[in-house]
């Protein structure tokens, strides 16, 4: 369907069907995973084992619609709106502090029946804006003082707002993505290191001198060697994966999702399905992920201009960072922070954002040399 309708107007190239098929497959895996890991909780909390699945299906349909829409628009045309869009997003990031805190943090805006996490959407807008801005031919990327003055304040404010929510995980993801985009844009390695060093210093100071999240970091260090020595969450995640073994307990038969493993259908879904499907089939999921990323980078490489290159590269990078942080946490390679796994975890915002990223990649895949 998508193929037919996208054939004509603005391009001569066909859409990247491999990416589309991989994306659809991953989406299906996600729905099965959500049902399998959420049915018990849905039953006990909401009285219906289908509660979460139903929600997720609605979001999946919305996401597909979104993908379809995005593949049909001219992305470059919206570039002029990137600065106002960025300012609006900063406003939204500030607005969360007016909302009611949930579990002690203010990350969400409640608009009618919808719960929106502005930081997720900010990520998209930021990558889009950066791609547009950095592709400016007059920009001298080697002039790093100029770059710092131009990009430092707007990005710094956004990161500050997000870190104050507090949402350290998203902050790190966005920061890593920003660094990655600059790296792709051709920033000097020396500059990147100089920019990153004081931040690392501040982080180390915060953790080890002030003691902010010190326990979590110490837990993490302990869990690297023996996952059972880590925090309760990472211990349960490791146990859950371990119990799966090579072949898994069978779909739906995991025992850890019964309130042992926290957030089995969102942040720790990778572990929960790891117990049920086992290592071998988990590797297939990893291959799907890798293939999506690979297609993303391939599209970036094939872009006719720097804007497309940075946009495709940045979005793919952002998907990767999300996957890496989530899987890293679940496999006890990274300290615990709550981030959803793209395409798989239950949650509308995450699915929609990841799908939009895929939609943009599909859109870009049709562009040819100008």
């Amino acid at each position: 369907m998508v193929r037919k309708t996208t054939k004509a107007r603005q391009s001569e190239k066909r859409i990247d069907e491999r990416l589309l098929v991989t994306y659809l497959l991953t989406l299906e895996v996600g729905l099965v995973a959500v049902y399998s890991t959420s049915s018990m909780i849905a039953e006990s909390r909401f009285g219906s084992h289908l509660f979460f699945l139903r929600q997720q299906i609605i979001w999946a349909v919305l996401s597909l619609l979104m993908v379809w829409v995005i593949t049909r628009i001219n992305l470059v045309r919206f570039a002029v709106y990137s600065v106002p869009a960025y300012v609006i997003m900063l406003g939204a990031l500030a607005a969360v502090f007016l909302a009611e805190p949930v579990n002690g943090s203010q990350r969400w805006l409640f608009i009618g029946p919808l719960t929106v996490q502005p930081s997720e959407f900010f990520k998209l807008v930021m990558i889009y804006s950066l791609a547009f801005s950095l592709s400016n031919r007059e920009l001298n990327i080697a002039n790093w003082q100029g770059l710092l003055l131009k990009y430092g304040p707007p990005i710094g404010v956004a990161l500050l707002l997000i870190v104050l929510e507090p949402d350290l995980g998203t902050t790190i993801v966005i920061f890593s993505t920003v660094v990655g985009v600059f790296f792709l844009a051709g920033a000097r390695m020396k500059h990147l290191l100089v920019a990153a060093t004081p931040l690392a210093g501040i982080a180390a100071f915060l953790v080890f001198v002030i003691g902010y999240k010190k326990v979590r970091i110490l837990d993490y260090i302990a869990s690297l060697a023996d996952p059972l020595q880590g925090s309760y969450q990472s211990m349960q995640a490791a146990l859950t994966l371990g119990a799966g073994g090579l072949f898994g307990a069978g779909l739906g038969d995991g025992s850890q999702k019964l309130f042992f493993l926290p957030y089995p259908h969102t942040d720790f879904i990778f572990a929960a399905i790891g117990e049920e499907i086992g290592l071998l089939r988990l590797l297939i999921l990893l291959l799907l992920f890798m293939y999506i990323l690979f297609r993303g980078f391939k599209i970036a490489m094939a872009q006719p201009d720097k804007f497309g290159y940075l946009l495709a590269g940045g979005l793919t990078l952002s998907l990767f960072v999300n996957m890496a942080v989530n899987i890293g946490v679940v496999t006890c390679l990274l300290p615990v922070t709550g981030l959803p796994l793209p395409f798989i975890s239950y949650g509308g915002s995450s699915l929609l954002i990841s799908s939009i990223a895929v939609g943009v990649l599909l859109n870009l895949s049709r562009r040819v040399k100008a």
Partner: protein
Amino acid sequence: MKRTRMERVRLSVILAAVCLFFGIVVLRLVHLQVLLQPRYSQIVQRQSSGTVSIPAPRGIIYDRHGKVVANNVTRSSIYSYPMNDRELIRAGRYLDSLFNLQRGTSQSKYGLKTRKFRWIKRRISDELANHIDTTAPKGLYLRTETQREYPQGLIGKQILGFTDIDNRGQSGFELAYDSLLAGRDGKADIRRDGERNLYRVKESALIKPELGKSLVLTIDWRLQEILEDELRSGVDKYNAKSGQGAFVDCHTGEILAMAHYDPNEKKPEHPVKLRTISDQFEPGSIFKAITAAAVLDADLVNFSDTVYCEMGKWKIGRRTLHDDKEHGWLTFREIMELSSNIGIAKYALKLGGDLLYQKALDFGFGQRLNTRLGGETRGRVHSPDRWSDYIVAALAMGHSIAVNSLQMAMAFAAIANGGELLQPSLLMCSVTEKGRLDNQCDLTVIRRVMKESSADSLRAFLRGVVERGTATKVNSSAVTIAGKTGTAEIVRPDGRGYFKNKFMASFAGFFPYEEPKIAGIVVLCEPKPVHYGGYTAGPIFRRIAENYMVINPDLFAAGCQTIITNTVKNGQTVEVPDLIGRSLESACSIAEHCGIRLRQTTDKGIIIWQYPTADRLVFPSDEVGQGIEENTH
């Protein structure tokens, strides 16, 4: 070439980083899911599965006629298991208002803690449980537990004993047979989730609880009730400090009733000892029956011979024996009937201390009866090595020896049954899960303690005591009682002789005289002002015997029209229907319907009484008796 070299290199670097990361993830997954898998899956198994114990219901206790005297009722108990602080605080507040406590006190009072199990109150009433069930917040839960219930109230409680909150026997029969009654708890595999909800998974992995054995006591609860009633009114009437009594079947040794009554006893619902086996006392004149047995066995008695009783005062060595009355020449029979100390002492001296001592041992004194009940004493019989004549005389009249009531009842049972000392038993049989009876306990003869001919003579003497002697108050027109009275001074606890004004009044005997069925003893401690056994303990004994006869006419009224039948229906217990007032014909068909066959000796009439009464269980060996009035129409 679409992109610059720099861009391609940088993209490749990122792609390499991606590949490197996924490589590390795969290695980590292999580490977790392959290398650590055996250990981890074991831990997961352990934290998500477990076993719950399925408590075995405690065995039911029946009396000898199948009346339920101890059974189980389920009660709810409330416990707390708050998952988090909010549940903890709510539970605390709820309990404050539930038990009208000051705000905030119940949290510390009950030691509430998150993720910790605490009993709040066990065995609460049904109404409270219902209330809690509908109103309690999360964190407070109910669990049903079984509790021991004694449908007969305090009757026989001293024998039954009691159980603690965990259903373990703490005294009496409940303690003595705890291992049989308790059964063994079963186990079931369960799956547990992180919030402590439990799921039963596999029925196959279930170890069934071994039910506690239901046991049938030899006690006849009707006699027990009579005994306790009479002891209570007797202690009251004769102004005694306390009283006790024991009755046994003199042919089987089965204990039919045992009780003590002390108005000052604390916590009668939690009896810790049974004085009929734990208290020892100097029996006094009732022991003369044993002396008489020894004398008769030694052929020292010529029934027409008389002995001079010294007109009530006889010096032995430096001490003097007294009689209550100034008796002159008495035959042996008269010595027994009038309970002459001097007369029996003279025979005892003729017999010699060794033989008397031996007889006392033969009759079971100085040894435990092995009823398995706790606190049983053996009594005391001194060995005759350095006995003076006075001590022999004292023993002959029941002093310088200590016994307990049950020992004395067994001794009189031996006299009543023709001379065989029987092992007293409390457990008649056990009931299997399907209602069958097994392990029927056989009677055990410990030994022959006297010649049958001696026993015959002694029984006649003892009957004479009631008819003509010291126990004429015991003589009943309804049932023929035989026995011996006793009035003993109480030994001072400091060991310096006896109280001059404190007495132990007793009567030991058996009935009916012609064909003895039941032997027993009644003892009153310090009755005032009348302290003679024949006037205090004796009448109590008589009333017990009479009452027992009223409820057991089939045992006594030989000539009555009765039909008696064995009831066997696959060897199982059967509930008895109410047949009173029915015609014989319909009674027969009803009974047959229940699996009871009535053997008829007459073919017409109305049932006027029945035994066992309705709603009792009938055991295969038991008999159902019916009294039939000839239909005059």
